[in-house]
């Protein structure tokens, strides 16, 4: 199974849209904390859900560099390729 940044990004957006509080018009360039109004705890909890969907673990120190949905997708693809 080979995920791409696009496919992972699409999956993340799909998961985000399951939350009714998230704006409907999000795309891969949305900033997770600023545009989605997630606090730090909400980001960590959301990443945990994505981790389980894709069977990958994103170390917390990596989250510091992630601003957008596409950043998160790229980080996950990178981790999967290393694995």
């Amino acid at each position, binding site marked *: 199974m080979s995920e791409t940044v696009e496919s992972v990004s699409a999956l993340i957006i799909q998961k985000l849209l399951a939350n009714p509080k998230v704006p409907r018009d999000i795309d891969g360039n949305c900033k997770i904390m600023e545009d989605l109004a997630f*606090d*730090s*705890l*909400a980001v*960590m*909890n959301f990443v*945990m859900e994505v981790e389980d969907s894709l*069977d*990958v*673990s994103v*170390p*917390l*120190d990596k989250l510091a560099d992630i601003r957008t949905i596409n950043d998160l997708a790229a980080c996950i693809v990178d981790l999967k390729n290393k*694995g």
Partner: protein
Amino acid sequence: MTSLFSKFEGLAGALGAVVAAGGRNPFAVVIEKPISSTVGIIEGRETLLFGTNNYLGLSQSERAIKAAQAAAATCGVGTTGSRIANGTQSLHRQLERQIADFFKRRDAMVFSTGYQANLGMISALAGKDDYLLLDADSHASIYDGSRLSAAQVIRFRHNSPDDLYKRLKRLDAPNSAKLIVVEGIYSMTGNVAPMAEFAAVKRETGAYLMVDEAHSFGVLGEHGRGAAEAEGVEADVDFVVGTFSKSLGTVGGYCVSDHPELELVRLNCRPYMFTASLPPEVIAATGAALEDMVAQPELRRQLMDNAAQLHAGFMSMGLNASTRVSPVIAVTLETVEQAIPMWNRLLELGVYVNLSLPPATPDSRPLLRCSVMATHTAAQIDQALAIFRQAAEECGVPLQPNKA
């Protein structure tokens, strides 16, 4: 030019809203004078203290007060130095021996605060090739320790040994050491860790296990050694960390372990090395409070009886309290708009509890966090319950009796 303080604008707005909604700043309460372990003067009124973590009431221990006075008189009021330089007096080594013996461990390290014990042990033990596995609801000191370490940090779902196991198995890192960190009792919710199951995961995966017994030391287990003693798995715990500022009523932190390398951790642990050690009067008071705790096991039984009384009262009243009885009992409310007026009304009516607001709470709902003491009387607990009912009714917080 950018202001250094522009990052605080959101906080200023949030604090302003909290103060406007309730009339006072809940994070700036002053206890003008402690009357006893259970009553203090706040805003000029005698107030029942139900949020001080002083589980055994030992902040007012006669034995500890006398020990502190004697130590100050003979040793002075400060050490003016680090533990690894001039900051270790005989009293410090005696207390370390006393703590190690209490836990039946080889050795102990005493830190200046409980926060520093977690910060120091986690950052010293976990290096850049290692993995830290943290419970998602871990205390800030554990998260901060993980940031000070260079390790890879993985969160697992709160109190879920299965999720921990899954995440450990997912790591493809046979050459990395793994350190699992859990808490005996979680400070915000009172949840108790399933220690036997965590210990089983540790054994199967070859990881190391650290337990922060900050809120369970002196509280759980036949001898008060915490959640690991209560479930009979102390042999699986590599490191116990904790604090003196809850059940012993003083201040300071510790780590106990059977690993002889603890002696080397002293020289590789920045929050231990680069701070002044505890002053003699605190060390002496802590040792005396520990003697009190050992000499009075009935305090622990009284504490659990009191916790059960408060918990049963909340349940029959119809407030949403934690499911398990522990000395930390959190009442969960649905909205911040309910929690702020209710917390203020409780204080006006004479009960102090902790107001915990998201994101410092686990599931984005606010908590009225209560901590029970062995020294509360049954009448004080009844009075607190009556005040909770009155405040809830006045603030429009729905009561749903018999909803388990």
